[in-house]
């Protein structure tokens, strides 16, 4: 079993002066909440003795090792850090990450890849689907319940207006939705133990993956400032104001 995840940037964000992205220097990187759920699900499967090993994977600069450490403290057995830094990290998108995951899945001979359904920084919601496509594996996205039945996987999916239950063959890709589980805490004793677990460092080139991006960010803008409102006394005043503003 295989639980890759992305790193998350915190809410206190500021657009870079050249408007190519947001400032990330010195801000804390923590695990994406959906990826935490994915890790928890993988660890649960291991605790039920349904899988042999849980490998936590993350792509990014040196700091993501801390995040992998958290996954190890939650119960993953070992970590793989795919080092992507500098310019490559800035343009790292779902397609590049999927290529890395697909290559790693083949190399590690993984039977199941569990990912978060989307990262909460760019909200792309593509990596799981792309990884399944690149591997030509079945996929169970937006999972709110996962049951392993021999070589099949029953996945309850959250869809518009209800739930859909599907059965897919292993190996497969699953993306975790919010209600799949409540992730456990990485406790201090487990963090201490996690320090002894192994994290292997690999480069995309070692996996034969080209991480150059075909997308160009034109600009990133801060959301417009909300204008302060006014209080009106009567309905008449309200109508007047709306007329003034040309809304009615």
């Amino acid at each position, binding site marked *: 079993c295989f639980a890759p995840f992305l790193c998350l940037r915190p809410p*206190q964000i500021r657009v870079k002066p050249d408007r190519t992205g947001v400032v990330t220097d010195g801000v804390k990187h923590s695990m994406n909440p959906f990826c935490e759920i994915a890790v928890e699900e993988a660890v649960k499967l291991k605790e039920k003795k349904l899988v042999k090993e849980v490998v936590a994977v993350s792509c990014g600069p040196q700091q993501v090792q801390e995040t992998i450490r958290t996954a190890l403290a939650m119960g993953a057995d070992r970590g793989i850090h795919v080092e992507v830094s500098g310019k490559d990290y800035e343009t790292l998108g779902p397609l590049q990450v999927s290529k890395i995951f697909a290559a790693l899945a083949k190399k590690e001979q993984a039977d199941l890849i569990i990912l978060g359904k989307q990262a909460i920084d760019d909200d792309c919601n593509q990596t799981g689907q792309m990884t399944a496509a690149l591997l030509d594996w079945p996929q169970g996205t937006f999972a709110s319940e996962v049951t392993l039945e021999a070589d099949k996987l029953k996945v309850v999916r959250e869809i518009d207006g209800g739930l859909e239950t599907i059965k897919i063959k292993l190996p497969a890709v699953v993306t975790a939705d919010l209600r799949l589980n409540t992730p456990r805490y990485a406790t201090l004793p487990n963090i201490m133990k996690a320090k002894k677990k192994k994290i292997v460092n690999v480069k995309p080139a070692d996996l034969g993956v080209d991480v150059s991006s075909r997308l160009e960010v034109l600009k990133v803008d801060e959301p417009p400032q909300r204008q302060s409102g006014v209080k009106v006394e009567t309905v008449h005043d309200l109508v007047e104001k709306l007329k003034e503003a040309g809304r009615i």
Partner: protein
Amino acid sequence: MIGAYDLKFRGEYNRHAQAWMDSVPCQVIGSLAMLSTEVSVLLLTYLTLEKYICIVYPFRYLTPGRRRTVTILVVIWILGFVIAFLPLVCKGVFRNFYGTNGVCFPLHSEQPETLGAQIYSIVIFLGLNLVAFLIIVLSYGSMFYNIQRTGTQTTKYTNHIKKELTIAKRFFSIVITDSLCWIPIFILKILSLMEVEIPARRCVGALKAVQAEHVAPQVCSTRSSSSTLSRITTHYSVYPRDKDPRWEGVEMERFADEADVVIVGGGPAGLSAAIRLKQLANQHEKELRVCVVEKASQIGAHTLSGACLEPTALSELIPDWKERGAPLNTPVTEDKFSILTEKYRIPVPILPGLPMNNHGNYLVRLGHFVRWLGEQAEELGVELYPGYAASEVLFHEDGSVKGIATNDVGIAKDGSPKDVFERGMELHAKVTLFGEGCHGHLAKQLYKQFNLRGNCEPQTYAIGLKELWVIDEKKWCPGRTEHSVGWPLNRNTYGGSFLYHLNEGEPLVALGFVVGLDYTNPYLSPFREFQRWKHHPSIMSTLEGGNRIAYGARALNEGGFQSIPKLTFPGGMLIGCSPGFMNVPKIKGTHTAMKSGMLAAESAFSKITDENLQSETAGLYIPEYEEAFKKSWIWKELYSVRNIRPSFHNYFGLYGGMVYTGIFYWILRGKEPWTLKHNGLDADQLKPAKDCTPIEYPKPDGKISFDLLSSVALSGTNHEHDQPPHLTLKDDSVPVAQNLAIYDGPEQRFCPAGVYEYVPLETGDGMRLQINAQNCVHCKTCDIKDPSQNINWVVPEGSGGPAYNGM
């Protein structure tokens, strides 16, 4: 008996409340109180009736038979016993009839436990006692009418009636007392029946009944509690979990680990101590396990300071800091000090030798500096655990400190365990260093436990608020420091501002405002003073066209030399701003904090590694630290400036203080033979709101000045929402009854993060306190300044709190 238990539980009653109310003594006290109350009520009624008959129908029943009296008395006592002990006998119907409030009096003004208990309580208090009360009042009224009438007519039996009259008078005083005692109870009872919220949790009913004749003492101290108010505080430090049925069967065993030294707090002091310890260990080729726990999610994320750093201690600790890339990027090149009036700026020359002189110092983002210190520590083999807060001090059986326990996680807002609940971890050590920063919550316990503040003055504090701005490049002069005093504060409010031009790759300035927490006007808002100050022409010109990128606040120590507590105790030491080594006129404490950590490390190292050491206590006691501290330059430095801060306590305030500093510091270098005193606790300084003028603050313009909530958002602060508020109240009723009633809710204004809010009750009458604990930036101001000292700041779930990036 209640008095005795009150003495026992004083100051920590809430912790024992549930246990006490369930205990046998409480039941016994309750039933005894009930017995004496009911017997005295019945006796009073009987005596009253007898006198009444005697006076109104004097001829018919002149001398009641002895036997009849005895019978009636016996009946009354039996009735009293039955009423009082029935609830104890029939536990099934009444459950915990007596233990519904702290004084064990079964008034049941709150939600009753069972219907039976409720009915019983109503029958007694509104049935029996109200009837008795009415009988007494009516009888006396009638007696008086009769006495007045007969007194003018009759000559016969005059003597007898006279005698009766004196007794009647004496009894009349009883009736007055009786009504004073009972009317509030009847009103409370009726109100609670009508489900009206009773505002004061403790009815100040310490009315002692007058002991008359042979009537049993009638105690009617109705410390009735009304829990119709929902609990504000749900934290286990106030409501212990071992008596809580929701916690039954939850595994509370903790994993424990052993280190040589455990350090609480990864700030300048803690990390300097850790680095020094490992340096010494490596130098002497010794094995030494040093663990640092830090409540912030990463090292430096809770650090906030100006900051203008004096590199003395750093050069002693890491002489090659430049080569190691310490983020000291901005040497001070220009020093400005001024007094502000509303429109003008009066420059004050900074003479060499004045503490405000900053030549040779560096302007830094202290959070980044601390993060760098953390990297140095890790490189030396220190174990850093950010995101894990020390929530408890652990003790050996001999009373010495054993170590600390980290906080539990996974507790819901109502105080119950969640499915993901995990117990904290115990870290044991030979010696534990407490470097929690200003007003640490563990240090607060240690002061009491070891009486560390017995020989020093109370600590005094200030609150510092800070913002980071990216300004117009043309106005940016890296290395310039500006300090001011005066406007917008009046001359008797201690405080001032700083504005530093940082050289960090972009046109960045750090600016902030400090207000002494000994201010007296409850209407003062440090946050809004800060916002107002930015509109001063000399400041606004720098900020115009700029962008605010960060905000934060933190309390700081101002007590200095006079307020330094005892620093060592068996098993532990206090370092850094926790005991408080801030040089106030210099507005610097990082160098002294670092040095104190280093001194503690040096003193501890020789003891820990001494193989022949015979320690008297299980936790090492290291008085050598205190001795080394007294010989160090921190001591000299703090001694020489000791009188500057208290010299501002004079009629002329700021100006008197400046004159004093000019004469005694600049000329005598603090060698004057006297030491001035501070004014006492900051919490005691507020005046009642009615004696103060509200301060009109201008509305924020959204360009230079901002509202509170958009500011708090820039601190990046966040806490898991579903956890008990970590701002705990010793008593939930005090905020409305005291802070709001007398001081107009000052916590709404001194909190720089909008944690405290008084909002109207849902029922529409009165107010309640709302605690938005997730906004807290861990500045500790509320714990310091709360006039009723009812707020206790404890650590939230680890990694909660602000996410400062180099503040």
